[in-house]
């Protein structure tokens, strides 16, 4: 991967744009990111002997190492950790922070990921000492407030899903999928059935089939119709007595609510299989419709999407799972319960439980943020979330439709698919994505669920002005493709690095620093 023509200055200042009268500022490049050159690794900073933090001098006698430890196990040298003073540690992480796109600085229309604003107050709540500093083995009597919080969250999620019981234990969406499939398997086994197949549409997220594999099931793909909906004939042909579950995402990953859902539930249930909902797209239906009411037996939530807990550069999330009545006996333990006298407790008593899927109780710090979010918004605010998320998506789609190919017809739910048709100019969806970076916009999800697409999810927290700016930028990029495609093909031009050789990174992996 080399290029000859482009120098960094190309496109550093995109040609001035004529703003519609009296409305918008000119398009800005992300000049603050144009720090050139690389930034030293921690291991290249500092000097032997430096340390960023000190402990009090020990006030107990030294314990003899040689009598108290087997000499074979005693370290003879220390791990080569950095040796850096506190100020340099601070500068290091400050500079790294400057080299990231984030919700707090950038529009982030990353389809399926629901990159909405993460309210500051939720961070403050999560760090209240009485919540943040509890040890998981403290007694229920010392943790009543936390137990009540978790119990209330459990009830709220039950209400939102329309399912009678929710477990808060799973650590993320994929972990929730796995937990749910384990519950479903245990249910079938309890009826003396060993079903081996799990179906999912071709538009399913990669974690769906991967979760099947972890559960020892065979993943079978069900076709989608050209309009993005499940092909019912193909579903009918594939669902049988050996099918444990059908995993559906609804609204699906093309951004469409599949109105055949009730019929799908019927087809699946007729064969004794379970209907599983990947709840990644719940942001479009809060307070509008409930999975339990449209025939779902089991689902997961992504708190880090729908309930706005921050993504932290990759995690943590939480993946609470809700189940219908007949699956309740199989939920993981322990469960947070109300004792009936206004006190709360952990309950291990569930004979047919699948057991534990992670240590302790779950991603509690994440769940606290989700609780704060749901409390702040309430039933009215949650409904407003979905209404505005759907409004924003349809508005953006309507504006972009003028110039771009939207292969699936609307109305859309909270996201939609767009195909930048520039193959004639040798410009790919990846090039468009990279060019968006120069305009300070995080690229949409790429090349999934169909080839060459961008999946655009604006979320409800964006203003009309931000959406309009995005449309202008997309149109601008289309102009650039027509006038000077190399500016797009070689983007980004304003980041600390240009395009990276990802092939080499995998072919000859260097995944740790060696001096």
């Amino acid at each position, binding site marked *: 991967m080399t290029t000859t023509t482009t120098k960094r200055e190309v496109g550093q200042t995109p040609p001035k744009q004529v703003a519609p009268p009296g409305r918008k500022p000119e398009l800005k490049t992300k000049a603050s990111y144009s720090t050139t050159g690389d930034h030293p690794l921690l291991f290249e900073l500092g000097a032997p002997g430096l340390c960023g933090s000190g402990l009090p001098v020990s006030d107990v006698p030294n314990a003899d190492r040689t009598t108290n430890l087997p000499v074979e*196990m005693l370290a003879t040298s220390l791990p080569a950790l950095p040796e850096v003073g506190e100020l340099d540690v601070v500068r290091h992480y400050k500079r790294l922070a400057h080299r990231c796109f984030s919700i707090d600085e950038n529009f982030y229309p990353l389809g399926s990921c629901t990159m909405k604003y993460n309210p500051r107050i939720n961070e403050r709540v999560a760090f209240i000492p009485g919540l943040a500093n509890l040890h998981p083995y403290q007694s229920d009597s010392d943790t009543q407030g936390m137990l009540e919080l978790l119990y209330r969250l459990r009830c709220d999620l039950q209400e939102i899903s329309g399912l009678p019981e929710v477990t808060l234990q799973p650590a993320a969406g994929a972990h929730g999928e796995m937990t749910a499939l384990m519950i479903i398997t245990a249910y079938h086994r309890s009826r003396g059935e060993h079903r081996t197949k799990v179906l999912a549409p071709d538009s399913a997220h990669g974690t769906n089939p991967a979760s099947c594999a972890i559960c020892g099931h065979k993943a079978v793909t069900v076709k989608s119709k050209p309009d993005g909906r499940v092909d019912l004939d193909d579903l009918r042909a594939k669902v049988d007595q050996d099918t444990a579950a059908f995993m559906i995402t609804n609204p699906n990953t093309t951004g469409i609510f599949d109105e055949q859902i009730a019929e799908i539930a019927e087809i699946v249930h007729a064969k004794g299989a379970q209907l599983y909902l990947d709840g990644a797209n719940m942001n479009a239906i809060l307070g509008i419709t409930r999975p339990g009411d449209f025939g779902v037996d089991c689902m997961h939530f992504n708190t880090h999407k729908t309930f706005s807990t921050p993504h932290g550069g990759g995690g943590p999330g939480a993946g609470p799972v809700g189940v219908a009545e007949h699956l309740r006996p199989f939920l993981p333990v322990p469960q947070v319960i109300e004792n009936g006298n206004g006190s709360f407790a952990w309950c291990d008593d569930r004979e047919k439980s699948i057991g534990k899927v992670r240590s302790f109780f779950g991603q509690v710090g994440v769940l606290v943020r989700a609780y704060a979010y749901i409390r702040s*918004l309430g039933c009215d605010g949650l409904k407003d979330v979905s209404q505005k998320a759907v409004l924003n998506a349809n508005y953006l789609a309507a504006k972009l439709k003028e110039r771009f190919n939207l292969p699936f017809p609307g109305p859309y739910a909270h996201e939609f698919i767009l195909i930048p048709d520039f193959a004639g100019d040798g410009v790919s969806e990846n090039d468009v994505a990279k060019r968006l970076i120069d305009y300070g916009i995080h690229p949409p999800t790429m090349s999934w669920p169909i080839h060459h697409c961008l999946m655009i999810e604006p979320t409800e927290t964006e203003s009309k002005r931000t959406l309009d700016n995005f449309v202008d930028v997309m149109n601008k990029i289309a102009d650039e493709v027509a006038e000077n495609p190399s500016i797009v093909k070689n983007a980004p031009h304003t980041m600390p690095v240009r395009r990276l050789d990802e092939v080499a990174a995998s072919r000859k992996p260097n*995944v740790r620093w060696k001096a």
Partner: protein
Amino acid sequence: MQYTQVTDAQVSEMLETIGAESIEELFSPIPDKLRTKGDLNIPKGVSELELLRDTESLAGRNHATGELISFLGGGAYDHFIPTVVDAMSGQSELLTAYTPYQAEASQGVLQLFYEFQTMICELTGMDVANASLYEGASAAAEATLMAINITRRKRVVIAETAHPDTVSVLRTYLAQQDVELATVQVGEDGCIDSQSLSAKLNGETAAVIVQSPNFFGCIERIDRLIPMIHEHGALAIVSTDPIASGLLKPPGTFDADIVVGEGQALGIPLQYGGPYLGLLAAKEKYLRKMPGRVVGMTNDLDGRRGFCLALQTREQHIKRERATSNICTNQGLLAMRASIYLATMGKQGIAAVATQCFDKSHYAATSIAELDGYELAFDAPFFKEFTVRTTKSVDKLLSVCRDSGILGGVALSRFAMGLDDCFMVAVTEKRSKQEIDALVEMLGAI
């Protein structure tokens, strides 16, 4: 509170652009009979001030460490967290970034995770590490699935000296697979009984999972166990406490194949059990079999150093059902905290933490063992946590301590392992001599 920011006037304008009469019309694909009638049974939204009142009152009904002096461990420890860790990991550019799929716009977190991987390799003595898994127990389960995949064998052995949650989580994962799970009991000295381990090993064994320091705080002789495991062609998976390598040789030194661990001790608040940090490191030759994201160093078009996600063809978004794991969202923010913690403490700091844990826990253990009615339950060497056997009622003595503001330890009765007369005491660098003496005095007075 509402975080949307579109006015009614703008709504009308937007609807006009869309060509719809109302927002309601946009939901027309959802059949009427499936619609939720009326409001959800959730209270109406509240202001920020009311939310603070609500959550502070909930928090006020808890009694947390800090308010109480904690000797609790069992997999979650009250270590000191330098202020810099909160300050730097709280930067919203890091906090609110997504997974770094767009490398050019994510050099900050990518470099951070590359540095994290390097430091985890150093602490475990391994060649390669990933960018985090959920937490310690599921990391052990993932390592086991990895070992099954590498060896193509269908039998796994775990020592019951591992954390009970690790054993249960592994059991849950393996119940789905056609894999046999054998367990090795706790020996007299609190460690794995090598005889009974030996009896459980055979040519079908994919892996043995050993935790050291183990659940009871004891240091396992992995220098002797690993060769035994390797004799049968099985992989040795060692679950470890990353802090211990400030004092002890890391598992890699003894030829462990995969090292996993709970990284909570590295600058992560207790948070009632999560989110924590799953660690996984391995020998270089297993790199392509590892679960989870991995960051690699590479060059850009101008030959400049940069970072990107590497080996993505192992992962679910590419390989789907043939991926090495289903994990997608990981524990990025916690890996960040661990990195900042390790950068701040550094080589000297980690040695100081480990040494103080060692000295203080030994001071506490010696003092408690001198009391009437108390003895150390096990002879094996320990690092920062130890198990006490008593002739008194464990529940009673812990509740007396608690009434005086001391969380004296974790009662083993809660794990139903036949050690109901025992409790575990963890002593980190944060505990002062005065606090330890107070615990000892309290126990002596019962």
